[in-house]
């Protein structure tokens, strides 16, 4: 089929991981695109929730912020933010939470807070927002990330949100009952945690991607599964849906101002 970019492949692979019955806590950017592509293709019944309080939203264009009016106008209902975090996130009603990362380690622990020391940071990043509780309250966590050695690191500078910690049963030892990161989708590959060690392991490579490319763009030496699939490339319909969505989005966000 026609050509596609690594980012498009990443978004579409993430969309495929979602099902019609999922209730997703959506972040901005790639997760938002992935969730809405899923909704517009194979998962029309999926429930999308943004932390601004919008439940069951179906935006025609992707929001620039998690609080865009479009989200409220197309939602089943919009609740207060305290209710969102208490009844809906902490209440354990979310099946899939999406997280991005500035730094990610092999166990799915994430840093979006600081580069360097917390109290005297080299770079002060935005911080966690909802991530600390999203990471532990959702039944499972999907992570999307553009691969780069400074993004996929041996050791993160700050534990903004907890993945599998040091691996193994570390979550259980902290009394966390949810699965945590079960899927990492990058622009190059699909990774899943090892059943025992919980270390992210490459299970599928996107079209034209080699093990070397994955290794060079990863800050730790990555593990590869015994059997590695090639990620099915985007279908006409998937790619068309994503590109239409992004075109509508671009138009909407320009058009707003004279």
């Amino acid at each position, binding site marked *: 089929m026609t050509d596609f970019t690594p980012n498009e492949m990443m978004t579409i692979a993430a969309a495929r991981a979602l099902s019609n019955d999922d209730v997703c806590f959506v972040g*901005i950017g790639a997760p938002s695109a992935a969730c809405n592509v899923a909704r517009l293709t194979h998962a029309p019944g999926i429930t999308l929730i943004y*932390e*601004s*309080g*919008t439940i069951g939203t179906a935006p025609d264009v992707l*929001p*620039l*912020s*998690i*609080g*865009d*009016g479009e*989200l*409220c*106008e197309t939602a089943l209902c*919009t*609740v*207060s*933010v*305290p209710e*969102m*975090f*208490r009844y809906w*996130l*902490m209440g354990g009603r979310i099946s899939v939470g999406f997280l991005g990362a500035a730094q990610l380690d092999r166990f799915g622990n994430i840093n979006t*807070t600081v580069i360097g020391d*917390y*109290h005297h*940071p*080299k*770079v*002060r*990043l*935005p*911080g*966690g*927002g*909802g*991530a*600390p*509780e999203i*990471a*532990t*309250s959702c039944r499972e966590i999907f992570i999307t990330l553009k691969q780069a050695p400074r993004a996929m690191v041996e050791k993160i500078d*700050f*534990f*903004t*949100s*907890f993945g599998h*910690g040091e691996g193994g049963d*570390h*979550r259980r030892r*902290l*009394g*966390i009952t949810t699965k945590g990161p079960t899927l990492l989708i990058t622009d190059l590959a699909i990774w899943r945690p090892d059943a025992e060690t919980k270390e992210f392991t490459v299970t599928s490579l996107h079209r034209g991607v080699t093990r070397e490319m994955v290794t060079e763009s990863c800050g730790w030496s990555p593990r590869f599964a015994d059997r590695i699939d090639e990620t099915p490339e985007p279908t006409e319909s998937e790619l068309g849906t994503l590109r239409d969505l992004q075109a509508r989005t671009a138009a909407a*966000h*320009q058009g*707003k*101002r*004279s």
Partner: protein
Amino acid sequence: MAEFLNLSEAVQRNLHDGDTVAFEGFTHLIPHAAGHEAIRQGLKNLTLLRMTPDIIYDQMIGMGMAKKVIFSYAGNPGVGLLRRMRDAIEHQHPRAIETVEHSHSAMAQAYEAGASGLPLAVFRGYKGAELARVNPEIRSITCPFTGEELAAIPAHRPDVTFIHAQKASARGDVLIEGIIGVQKEAALSARRVVVTVEEVIADFDGKHPNLCMLPHWTIDAIAVVPGGAHPSYTQGYYARDNAAYLEWDRISADRDLFAAWMKANVLDATPEIFASRVEALR
């Protein structure tokens, strides 16, 4: 009891140097006009409370008004970083600021606890998260029934909360619609409450009974400021000025450009200008 005042008097009477203040609004209904008035009045040593400091606090921090910021996401939503806040944290420019950092869940529940008159919020949170190590206000309690350890943080009790809403009634009741965020809780947790509104209507007769309202006796001052949320938005009145958020990334990147922009658009301006700023967004 709600009193209708012009914005400058509403701010003068209710916001003082050294106050702990919340200007709330979750992407929607951010009270920018009230924030600009506070900047014009040159308030000092404020403790700024807000989930996402956003442009509204980036401007106050850049103007040196904040001694402390309590927050959960220091980003420019959908755009990137808050460059004036970063400059203050990384280079103490124009002054050093103390930061107290929480998660969104914690901030929202601290407002909810404050609105409930409680001294603390108890919730399941921060498990495995390093904020619990660097923020001494994050403690824990043990459930006497299950033995589970739960996070505990102090309730928010700001001296004053500023919010923006769609409508006030002639009596001073306030109606908030759409993405209501934490505004009701931020208002009810505060000692004083100032609301800017798009318009005043006679009464709320015929409105659905379950809408988000603040009775007049929970509010101290109301100022009518059409467009008062710009570049944030007001559902039913005007759209978010996404271009302005993108533009802020450029303006805030340079100290001098920031200073010039603030002089031209805030210090030398008046609340009336907000109406014209949203014309093209209606």
